[in-house]
């Protein structure tokens, strides 16, 4: 079970787990629930550089499209092929098997939210 208080969050409903200089990124349960059943995920190429705040992927449900923003600058070191193959993992395990990308970063940006900030933001 993921310790949700150990994660960073963004106002764009992403979570970030930091391990050394690698950030694992996913979307929150709140976002997954709002989207509805996820049926298609497009993730950035491994080895590519991403810039924090830019769109690097897409998450589509039956009825809507969400854009995935890179929360940090860095190099994509892994993209979750299991989620591409089975997008329902985003709904069933958003903080676990439904992770999306891992990015090697140099510095975390300012303004990341902690769990309390994030739950206050979404009103839960």
């Amino acid at each position: 079970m993921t310790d949700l208080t150990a994660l960073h969050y963004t106002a764009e409903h992403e979570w970030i787990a930091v391990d050394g200089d690698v950030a694992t990124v996913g979307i929150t349960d709140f976002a997954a629930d709002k989207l509805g059943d996820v049926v298609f995920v497009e993730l950035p190429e491994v080895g590519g550089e991403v810039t924090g705040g830019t769109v690097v992927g897409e998450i589509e449900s039956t009825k809507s499209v969400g854009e995935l923003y890179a929360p940090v600058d860095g190099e994509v070191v892994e993209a979750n092929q299991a989620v591409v193959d089975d997008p329902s993992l985003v709904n069933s395990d958003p903080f676990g098997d439904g992770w999306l990308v891992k990015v090697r970063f140099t510095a975390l940006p300012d303004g990341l939210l902690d769990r309390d900030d994030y739950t206050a933001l979404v009103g839960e």
Partner: protein
Amino acid sequence: MSDPSTPVPPPAAPVAVVEPRLSPLNDVHVGLGATFTDFAGWAMPVKYSSDLAEHHAVRSTAGIFDISHMGEISVRGAEASAFLDATLAGRLSVLQLMQAKYTLLLNDGGGIVDDLIVYRTGDDEFLVVANASNRDAVARELVGAASGFDVSVDDVSDGMALIAVQGPAAQAILERTDGLAIVAGQASLAEVRYYRATAATFGDDDVFIGRTGYTGEDGFELYVAVHDAVALWSAITVAGAPLGLVPAGLACRDTLRLEAGMPLYGHELDADTLPVQAGLGRVVALAKEGDFRGRAAIEAGPADGARVLVGLVAEGRRAGRAGYAVLDADGTAVGEITSGALSPTLGHPIALAYVAPESSAVGTPLSLDVRGTRIPATVTPLPFYSRKKEATA
């Protein structure tokens, strides 16, 4: 990620709303943990758990929907049938007792004010069912057109709840619903045919049951007094649980109707679209005598080159969505998607789109501009999905 957008299409026209209107079943939905959306000024359940699971349940067993936001307008009087013939696009006077017809209310330009289902509930009594977003417009137009006819037009929506039970198990579920009894002399649930209705009671009150729906499956719609809505929903739910009935929201209702090729007002139909463009030319009874609203414009026909509604199928899993451009083989924009989704039943993207007539033939290879990526698509006959017909259908 960006804020997930609301998964149900907005109403056709802006609705001035301070507080959303609540269905008589609102407390039930809250208790079931529903996610809500604003639909035509109503807070309605968009899903209860998984919209995909709800979709599949309706195709394989059954789903129960609250569609109490729909508008119901009573038309009664000695000239009721003549009034409807003179006002709506179809010939309603030919309806038999307890028969329903899909029809249109047109404007003077032949465009569509709303698509309607009209039931004949008595010799001189009809029930007109309108989309929630158009309820006021339809009521206003009918009231305005009624002068000169011996007829009374009353918007009875506020007193009425509407529950739909859709799916192959729908009949069996309603047959075993405690307290729901068909009125003596009326058609049993097994006997009532598609686009026919029957009369029942629930406790001491009347329930009007039509065998219609908006999902492409067999099913029923139950018109019931507001004060009976919660008890009837509960009784149906109890009866249906062993047969796989699940509560189903507007998200799956939209993918179900899209698979069935059914138009949604505000997407495929609007005030500037003529019925023939939407594939609804057959709904307009030009053979009937006398004038009706929009007749002259319908007879004149749409402008040369006016776009027509087609079905499109694509491969892969990335869906074209409402507003996306449709391109021909040269990359020229020839149309626009009005509804689109990854079909839960078929497993590939489907879309309804308006395209130029020269690009509308079945088999025409086109492409969808999905946020800058071109997805190959092919014009296909509608509906995308049709159920295996039973003897009752």
